[in-house]
């Protein structure tokens, strides 16, 4: 019954007119950037993060979360109508969604995508609520030893599900941890790796790094390719799906939601991987797999449900353990820290209205999306025509203002520039920047707890395997590492990513 009390508290928080407004703003901005290719929710959240400083913590988190799942919503619109996925999460939706649009069923595809997302969002909200309590209760028992093992497991898990070479990803994590340690050492007061620059005494700020690595670098890559978009099925008549469509889509929706919820919670989870897995599953169990790629409604319903469920359930490790599983969750942690809240299991007990408010707002936000977006589809379609060569200078200006405002520091602007260049270098040599960001965010926490643990154990590294919970966490990490080296699993992972 505690669960219902909590959800009621959350609903009360999320339904205050102020938070409703921020939720609305979040999902609208999210849909907008989701529709527009070339600007990711990650860049948007990083850009807007400095401006949430003045908001109440719950309002800030509600709005930023809304941007994330709103973007999954918007990107499916672009995928179906223009065959250009707004975000990676809807690459699969292009396959069958665009075909449906070409057959004149754009309205039906859009409606099914919206309904599937709403259904998945509703289930995911309940899943988050159910999972959070036991996870946070477990995490509250953690000492420095268990925290170190948990962070290691989280970082390695992110590697398993990430793209590309695991060895490079692990190297990037270590680099991230190192850069995360820049600044004055908390224990001794000695400045470390600051090169006498006062701006980084408190650490290198995260927002310019994230904007540079992701926003700026991806923009340069986008501009390498000529921008051409072809509209299909532009006349959207009839947004109501037929009963036959609904009946065919519903089981797929349920399966997609399940896939999304499971993959979203895992380290490295988020909105990108679940739709691929869900689509593969649909194709495998379909009576006639040849329909896929030719406008099968299951091929829209299942991945759309999966990406929304994954987007939402990836909040679980962040909210309950303070462990970000993808770069966007790392930004959310940054947002909490700006508000002076140390992320971790204590957030749930000390700030229940924040915790449950954010969770309840996800359901309200999904409801808003379905009510508001279907009638507004015409506006989003119109926005798809905004040329990228006007869009990207505006994005640069907003990125620059965002990076500057986090500390009102010019240094951060140069930092953004430097990390933009670095991000482009990483893109070109095929190294994912996401593990770097996770290592950067978790670095200080990892070092502090490691030092504390070793102090308590008087320098005996064996303490990490002598404590039962820590030993289990490390055993899981070892299994993950072994899995990465095991050829069979490695091949499967590569197939999934293709």
């Amino acid at each position, binding site marked *: 019954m505690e669960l219902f009390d909590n959800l009621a508290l959350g609903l009360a928080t999320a339904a205050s007119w102020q938070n409703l407004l921020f939720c609305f703003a979040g999902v609208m901005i999210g849909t907008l950037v989701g529709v527009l290719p070339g600007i990711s929710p990650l860049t948007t959240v990083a850009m807007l993060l400095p401006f949430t400083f003045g908001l109440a913590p719950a309002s800030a988190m509600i709005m930023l979360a809304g941007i994330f799942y709103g973007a999954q919503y918007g990107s499916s619109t672009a995928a179906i109508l223009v065959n250009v996925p707004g975000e990676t999460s809807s690459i699969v939706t292009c396959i069958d969604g665009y075909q449906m649009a070409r057959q004149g069923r754009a309205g039906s595809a859009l409606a099914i995508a919206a309904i599937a997302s709403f259904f998945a969002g509703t289930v995911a909200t309940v899943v988050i609520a159910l999972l959070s309590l036991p996870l946070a209760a477990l995490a509250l028992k953690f000492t420095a030893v268990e925290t170190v093992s948990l962070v290691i497991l989280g970082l390695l898990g992110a590697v398993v599900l990430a793209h590309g070479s695991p060895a490079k990803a692990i190297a990037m994590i270590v*680099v991230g941890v*190192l850069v995360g340690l820049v600044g004055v050492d908390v224990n001794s007061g000695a400045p470390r790796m600051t090169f006498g620059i006062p701006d980084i005494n408190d650490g290198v700020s995260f927002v310019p790094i994230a904007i540079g690595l992701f926003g700026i670098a991806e923009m340069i890559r986008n501009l390498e390719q000529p921008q051409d978009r072809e509209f299909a099925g532009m006349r959207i008549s009839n947004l109501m799906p037929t009963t036959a469509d609904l009946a065919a889509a519903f089981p797929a929706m349920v399966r997609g939601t399940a896939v999304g919820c499971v993959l979203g919670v895992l380290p490295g989870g988020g909105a990108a991987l679940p739709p691929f897995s869900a689509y593969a599953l649909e194709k495998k169990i379909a009576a006639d797999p040849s329909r896929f790629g030719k406008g099968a409604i299951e091929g829209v319903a299942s991945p759309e449900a999966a990406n929304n469920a994954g987007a939402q359930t990836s909040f679980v490790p962040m909210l309950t353990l303070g462990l970000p599983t993808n770069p966007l969750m790392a930004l959310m942690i940054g947002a909490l820290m700006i508000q002076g809240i140390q992320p971790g299991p204590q957030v749930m007990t000390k700030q229940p209205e924040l915790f449950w408010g954010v969770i309840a707002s996800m359901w309200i936000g999904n409801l808003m999306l379905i009510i508001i977006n279907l009638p507004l589809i015409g506006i989003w379609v119109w926005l798809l025509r905004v040329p990228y060569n006007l869009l990207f200078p505006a994005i640069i200006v907003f990125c*620059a*203002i965002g990076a500057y405002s986090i500390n009102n520091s*010019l240094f951060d602007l140069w930092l953004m520039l430097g990390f933009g260049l670095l991000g482009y270098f990483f893109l070109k*040599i095929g190294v994912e920047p996401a593990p770097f960001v996770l290592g950067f965010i978790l670095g200080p926490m990892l070092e502090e707890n490691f*030092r504390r643990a070793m102090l308590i*154990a008087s320098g005996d590294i064996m303490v990490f395997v002598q404590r039962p919970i820590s030993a289990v966490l490390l055993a899981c990490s070892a299994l993950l590492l072994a899995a990465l080296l095991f050829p069979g699993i490695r091949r499967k992972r590569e197939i999934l990513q293709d």
Partner: protein
Amino acid sequence: MRKAGLGVLHRIDVKELAFGLFLIALALVAFLSTSALSVGTAADMGPGYVPRVLAWAILGFGAVFCIASLLKAPQPFPALAWRPLVAILAAIALFALLFSTLGLIAACVGCVLVAGTATAPVRWRQLALFGPVLAGFSALLFVKSLGLPFKLWPSVLAPYMLQLWPW
């Protein structure tokens, strides 16, 4: 001489080599900048302990990638798109320079003009119109509505060359 040197690059995985060299350079910088910090013992770590351990790990990774790049199937270094790269980075740099000296309006206009050269036919007229529009929008949104303390216009009193570099 030079041609022979470049010839080697065609027989190895240049991407992997580049990453390996990046890691080695980073590790060296880390060693250099933490050389004055005390390391301490495992039971009582000094500020230099963990950075030093990480730097060793990064150095190790860098060495492994460098060696692996010689053994792997050759991969050329991917073509760089210099035009967008230079235009975007220059636009940000110009924004940073103008923002601190002439204010937000000039920074927006200048940034849009430079950024616009990233794509092939530069539409100067479009950019010249869009810059002021974006500047006005930013001024309204960030300064008027959000109340951020940005300088909007160049102040005649302040010499232009102040604060060109952030520190």
